[in-house]
Structure formats: C-alpha cells, structure tokens
C-alpha cells in the first residue's frame, strides 16, 4: 500500500492506460506544457510525446467535438475541460452529440470518450468557477457520470472510464486534488455503477458524492455514539447503484443525501424520488437533501462558506431525521 494524492492517482490512471493502449490520448487546454492547470497530466507530454498529449487553443467546442469524432473513429480520447463551468461552451458536443450519437445511429456508432473536468466551490473563484453541474449530465441520457471522492476510487474509476465503450463525464473536485489516500501498488479497476459503503452504520443512510463524502464521514465522526450513520459513496450517478441505496435505507429507514450542487433540482431529488418509489414503506422519517444554497457562488469567503454545505449541515440534517 502507498499513500498518494488524488491528483497523483488520476495521473497514474492516465499514464497506465496510455501505456496499455495506443488509442488513448489526452486533449485539452494547457495539458502538455504544465500538465493542465491542476497538474493532472503532468509529465505526460514528456513521456508520451506531443502527438498523444494535445494542447489546444481555447476552443472547447472544437476540441470536445474532435474528441467525439475521434472516438467514433476508434480512438479513446481523454478530453480535459478545465472547469465544468466552461462546459457551457461545448454543451452541444456533450449533450446533443456524444450522448446521442450511438442511439441515433441505431447502435452503429460507438463513442468511447472520457471528458475529465473538475467542479466545486471553496476557492473563492466566484460564480463562473465554482459550479457543480452533475445533475445536468445525469439527466440527459447517454453519458455515464463519475464523481470519485478518494484517490483509490479516482484511479480505479478513471481506468474503467477510459476502457468503457461509452462517453463518460468524469467529475473531479478541486478541493480533493491534494487529499491523500491508500492505494495498492498493483493494477486495479473500480467498476462504473458500483456504490461503496464508506462507513457502515445502522441509524441513518447518508448518500454522498465527491467532496461531500468526506464531509459526511466527518459528520459521522461528530455524531458517533449519538447516531450511527451509514455513508454510501455513489461513485457514479450513471449508472446508479440504486440497490446499494435501497439496501441501506431498508436497514436504517432514514435518508439524507449530501451533494455540493444546489439543493433545488439537483440529483439529490432524484435519489429521493427513487427511494420513495421503491422503498417508501421502509422510510420512517422524511428523506432530506443537503446541498448548496440556491444562488450563484458569491466571491466573498464568508458568503461562500454560508452557501456551501459543510459537515455541520449534514449533522443537522441527520439529527432532524434521526
């Protein structure tokens, strides 16, 4: 076992897959010279050359579209969009092209594409650099959606995403990049579509994603002895491992969903919907979603913290339903 950062885990996943398969290449802004502004592709250019680590102009629509087309032609692009907020400039390539081409072609075309990007607040970058947009990608059918919370999952999921024959949007979190975690030296994969019980518990099920998994674990610590929390890390929203949620809710009868995205209209509501439809009778308390306040992200640090959900917010929600 080694202890490595989330960034390092991602970096290893990419390097290993590029080595394994010549069809894998990286494309995006600043990905070669500085390894991406967060350093996820650091060292790749040196190792694999400029042909396979393609630094682009600031043309998200063109290079994401290129990646979609290259995937149609049998390559396996890893396309980096620097911030998820910038995906607004290539939404057509994502939602109308990548997600739909296979279906529209009656299954003739395959789009083995990974779009890597990072999201989330907490760095005082204000409204256009702090969003969490997973609900958009999860609502429109045709893309898989991954949101790893640990270095272990980040590496294993990214490798699976690269090998998957479908478009995957891979949502990292900017505040997770420097976090560290255990990881085997041997190769491993984490399959898309399997949730992970990050902490077992008996009283309340907390379903969380990305950074909020860490917050949920903090909350569980805080409440230890008072309320026993089961923390389920979804890891992917599409495919959704609903069975894992259902099994836990059937045990605890109580559900809190923790997402960093805006509370209203987010994926949390979808989980509540499914739980209500499929295990309503198991519920002994109203399910609750903890998320960001429904406003664009303010710049000022105090306001930003007021908008973001933290461990305390989860603690409060758990206490409210427990």
């Amino acid at each position: 076992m080694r202890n490595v950062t989330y960034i390092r885990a991602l970096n290893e996943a990419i390097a290993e897959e590029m080595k394994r398969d010549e069809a894998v290449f990286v494309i995006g802004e600043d990905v070669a010279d500085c390894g991406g502004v967060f350093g996820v592709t650091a060292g790749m250019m040196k190792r694999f050359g400029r042909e396979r680590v393609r630094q682009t102009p600031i043309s998200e629509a063109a290079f994401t579209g290129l990646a979609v087309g290259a995937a149609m032609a049998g390559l396996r692009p890893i396309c980096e969009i620097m911030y998820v907020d910038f995906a607004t400039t290539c939404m057509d390539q994502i939602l109308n092209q990548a997600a739909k081409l296979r279906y529209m072609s009656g299954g003739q075309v395959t789009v083995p594409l990974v779009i890597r990007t990072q999201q989330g607040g907490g760095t005082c970058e204000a409204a256009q650099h702090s969003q969490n947009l997973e609900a958009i990608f999860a609502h429109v059918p045709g893309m898989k959606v991954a949101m790893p919370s640990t270095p272990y999952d980040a590496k294993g999921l990214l490798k699976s995403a690269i090998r998957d024959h479908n478009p995957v949007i891979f949502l990292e979190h900017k505040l997770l990049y420097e976090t560290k975690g255990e990881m085997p030296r041997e190769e491993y994969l984490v399959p898309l579509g399997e949730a992970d019980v990050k902490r077992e518990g008996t009283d309340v099920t907390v379903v969380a994603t990305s950074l909020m998994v860490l917050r949920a674990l903090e909350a569980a610590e805080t409440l230890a002895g008072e309320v026993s929390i089961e923390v389920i890390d979804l890891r992917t929203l599409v495919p959704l491992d609903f069975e894992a949620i259902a099994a836990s809710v059937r045990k605890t009868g109580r559900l809190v969903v923790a997402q960093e995205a805006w509370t209203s209209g987010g994926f949390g509501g979808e989980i509540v919907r499914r739980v209500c439809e499929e295990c309503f009778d198991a519920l002994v308390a109203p399910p609750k979603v903890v998320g960001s306040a429904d406003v664009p992200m303010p710049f000022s640090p105090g306001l930003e913290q007021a908008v973001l959900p933290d461990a305390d917010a989860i603690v409060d929600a758990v206490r409210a339903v427990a």
Partner: protein
Amino acid sequence: MQIAQDDLRRMLRLMHTIRSFELTAQTLFREGLAVGQFLGALHSYEGEEAVAVGVCAHLRDDDCVFSSHRGHGHSIAKGADVRAMMAELLGRESGISRGRGGSMHMFAPEIGLMGGNGIVGGGTPLALGPAFAAQYRGTDQVSVCFFGDGAASQGVFHECLNLASLWKLPVIYVCENNLWAATTPICDGWPVADLAPRAESFGMAGVAVDGNDLLAVYEAAGEAVGRAREGVGPTLIEAKTYRHRPHCMVIPEHRPEDELADWHARDPIARLEGHLLREGAISDVELADLVTEVEAELQAAADFARESASPDAATFADYLWA
C-alpha cells in the same frame, strides 16, 4: 482535369438517384401526412446534387463524411443503400439507422457515413475527429464535412477552421451556399459575398466553386482531397448552389419566383447531361435508360420501405449503451 467518361456517367447516375430519392421521399411523406402520420423533418437536396457527388467521388469507404440536416444527397453520394435510407424515412427496423434516426440521422459507418446532424453546424467539430485519427495513426484517410451557408455563422465552425489549420488536419469543409437558411436570405446572414477569405484568415486554403457544375466541384474537391491525403492540410470549399424546394416539407416557398426560375435553368443534372451529350459520352437512349433504371430502383426502395416492419415498441431502450 481529365475525367474518365465512365466516372462521369456514374456520377450522373448518382445525381439522378439523389433526385429520384427526394421525389420518392416527398411522395411517402405526403402519403404519411394523408393518413395523419407525422414523419418529422424532410429537407430536399434537389438542385444541389453536383456538390455531394463531385466531392464524394474522391472518397474511399474508409474516408469519413459528416452530413447535415439536408443529408440525403451526401449519404447517397457516399454509397449508402437507398433501400435502407428509404426505410429509415419511414422509421422501419430495416432503416439505415434502424429507424432510430430518421431523415436527419442516417449512419453507415462501414462506408464512412458518420451521420447527419439536427444541429446546424453540429457536424463541423465532429469531422475533425477522424481527420485527427488519420493523422494520429499515420494513415491517409480524409474527413469531409458538408454544411450550409447558415451553418457558416455558427461559432464552432470557426474554432474548427482554426484548429484544422493549426494542426494541418486532413479535413475538407464543404459549405453548400444555397443562398438561403430556412427563410433567411444570405444577405441577412452574411455581410460578405465569399467564404474563402475566411479560411485564408485562418491560414488555410479556401476556394469558391460553382456548385451546380459537377466538373468544377469534382476538380476542386480532387485538389482538396489530394492535399489532405498528402498531409498538406485542410481546405474550405464554398460551393455556390441552390435548393429547388422549400426549406422543408412544412415551410411554404418564400423565395422570389425569378430567382427560382433562374436557378432551375442552371440545374446541375441538365448541365452535366448537356455536357455528356455534347461530348458524345452518352446518348439520348442511354440517358433515358439510366433515368428509367434509377426510378425503378427508387420505386423498389419505396416498396421495400413500406413493406418493412417498424421496430418493436418494446425495444425503445436498445442501442443506448455499448
């Protein structure tokens, strides 16, 4: 440029096939309407046949074509089976996209037909993909994108010119300037007369060609494809042409009558026929036979389509995931 007479006759036949396809499709559409059945959008390529045929004549099955909403001509010119295409228009399981795509989404990747697009300009960045893949793999395939004068006002198209020129990708952009975008005349869409200077402003080759003159299109496309195959770089071809029909089946004709008459007099099929007759490359009898054969082929296609089964409604979820 010397073109073998056989090739010219083949191209003439393809042009007739396209026209006959459109006429037959319109009949089917009206039949459908008559029984109260929507059949979606139908955009006729009549009048523009020389463009698709003149360009695709230079392409191999392993070269890619990305088409538009007005894509029947491109599909036929690329070699698609008119029976499967006709069945697609009726949404049959035997359709070229298994009835999932319809008129705007005809796919046949085995012959390089990478689909139409319902999004104006949507194909432009996708077309970069196979061009990139060819360069990446060191093969000499080319990628062609057909789009309209209206699509030339989409931002992404310019990102593509920039990227194609920057990376010297083997892609050919063919703008079918038919003077209208739906009901909007070109003077309300373009502040300029020609598109070629735009390509040049990105450091890439740009040419204008009479899109109703098959020989001219064939020649320009031949040069562009040659340059692309040799790795010299991309080309933008603006083909000046005209559609004989209204924008689509449900929008009435709105164009000036004299303009229509003017362009009908420049019909690309009559023009090529005149040339072939003058050159003695075809006789009146051969011509009549050709037309008869083509019409029979299209009748057979229509029968095939009518007789084909619709997809089993229970299969609606098929072909989403690979």
